[in-house]
């Protein structure tokens, strides 16, 4: 049976892993290669690196980090942040990324999704969507690290990128990110039920039951978390054992 994936997420800037709350207030969480190796040993199914660097100087660093990680860690690596053109996709894949995630640039230029998928295959194109709940109960797509409202509906946009060839959707609830209150399950289920590609739930994990809920109630194919792993609250192995005890198929 296909197992549900647990994906630790590493936000990287200036060569270090950091973690913020509601997209601001960064704390240092350590060396990316060291952290990647630790999660691999704990049984992580995949790793996601988000380059949250604002400068182009810092941006080149992520290529070296991915090269280092890819030579030592043999599980799938997804890299996102600052991907603006098909050439950026190529550079990241050449550095050792298996999948490349795009967010703001996909909204600005949806053809980027179609072009990258046509050239490199859907399997390596992930579209990340940052979602914020609206007063009317739906969700709006935000870009630029959550600073720019787009007026676009999240479920509609998810369907559009899937149609354009995105192989996977990384769905982050901005309201829950860093809150430790659990995933926005309504949002996760709405998107997961609407698209035919796998959905990764992200934003808000504070305990292991939240991971279970993301799968059982959010219908996610994979769950992503950062802080519960970075600060040693739980290991990936503990998370998987708990999920298995709740009847979720995981690779142990």
């Amino acid at each position: 049976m296909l197992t549900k994936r647990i994906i630790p997420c590493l936000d990287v800037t200036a060569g270090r892993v950091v973690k913020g709350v509601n997209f601001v207030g960064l704390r240092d969480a350590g060396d990316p290669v060291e952290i990647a190796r630790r999660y691999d040993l704990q049984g992580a199914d995949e790793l996601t690196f988000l380059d949250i660097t604002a400068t182009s100087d810092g941006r080149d660093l992520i290529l070296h980090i991915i090269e280092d990680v890819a030579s030592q860690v043999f599980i799938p690596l997804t890299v996102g942040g600052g991907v603006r053109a098909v050439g950026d996709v190529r550079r990241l894949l050449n550095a050792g990324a298996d999948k490349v995630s795009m967010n703001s640039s996909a909204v600005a230029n949806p053809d980027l999704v179609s072009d990258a998928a046509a050239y490199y295959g859907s399997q390596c194109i992930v579209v990340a969507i940052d979602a914020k709940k609206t007063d009317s109960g739906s969700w709006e797509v935000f870009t630029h690290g959550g600073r720019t409202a787009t007026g676009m509906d999240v479920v509609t946009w998810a369907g559009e990128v899937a149609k354009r060839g995105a192989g996977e959707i990384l769905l982050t609830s901005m309201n829950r990110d860093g809150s430790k209150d659990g995933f926005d399950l309504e949002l996760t289920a709405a998107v997961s039920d609407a698209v035919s590609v796998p959905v990764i739930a992200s934003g808000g994990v504070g305990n292991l039951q939240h991971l279970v809920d993301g799968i059982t109630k959010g219908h996610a194919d994979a769950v992503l978390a950062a802080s519960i792993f970075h600060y040693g609250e739980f290991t990936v192995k503990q998370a998987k054992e708990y999920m298995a005890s709740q009847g979720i198929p995981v690779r142990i």
Partner: protein
Amino acid sequence: MQTIAIVDYGMGNLRSVYQAFHHVAPDANVLIARTPEEIMTAQRVVLPGQGAMPDCMRHLKESGLLHALLEAAKNKPLLGVCVGEQMLFDQSAEIRSGAHSTWTKCLGLIPGDVRRFELAGKLQPDGSAYKVPHMGWNQVRQDKKHPLWEGIPDLSSFYFVHSYYVTPQNQDDIAGSTEYGDWFTSAVARDNIFATQFHPEKSAEYGLKLYKNFVSWQP
């Protein structure tokens, strides 16, 4: 020192396959092969593949490596991975959009076809819909004993990303199967050829073990 040639016909990224072989065989000459000579002088050949089948077949033909690869397939240990596995078969249902034929012709080294998952309307045991591509870690049932399975427990999980799968004509060629909606063939073995639908280079410990087994395999 033996040379392991990873066939580079210009489709996608071979770095992770290269890194994994480098890791399990530090004493071998692991080579990303771009010339027929590099394939012909190697002791072992790896055929990776990603992207769409029509592009893979076209690039392989245009690369000038096709003949050397077919020669190697006669007697050298050959390992196909993902689309590299599918390419070994007769034909694939993955066609160029607008193509007239219903099949893309492949290498014809193992009898059988390549088909797409048709899972619309089917539900997973937890009630959710099956998604295509089949993406993630899934178990592989070892259908026959083979040196490449050595030291890998039956039903170990490997990493998959694909929308098409092979359907071998001969039961004997099936080395492993995986369940996704239905059982499909996830590994094949025939004489000096072994191939996997999953990505050993992304499958942690047991994936590396399979590559290590390939490095010392004497078919």
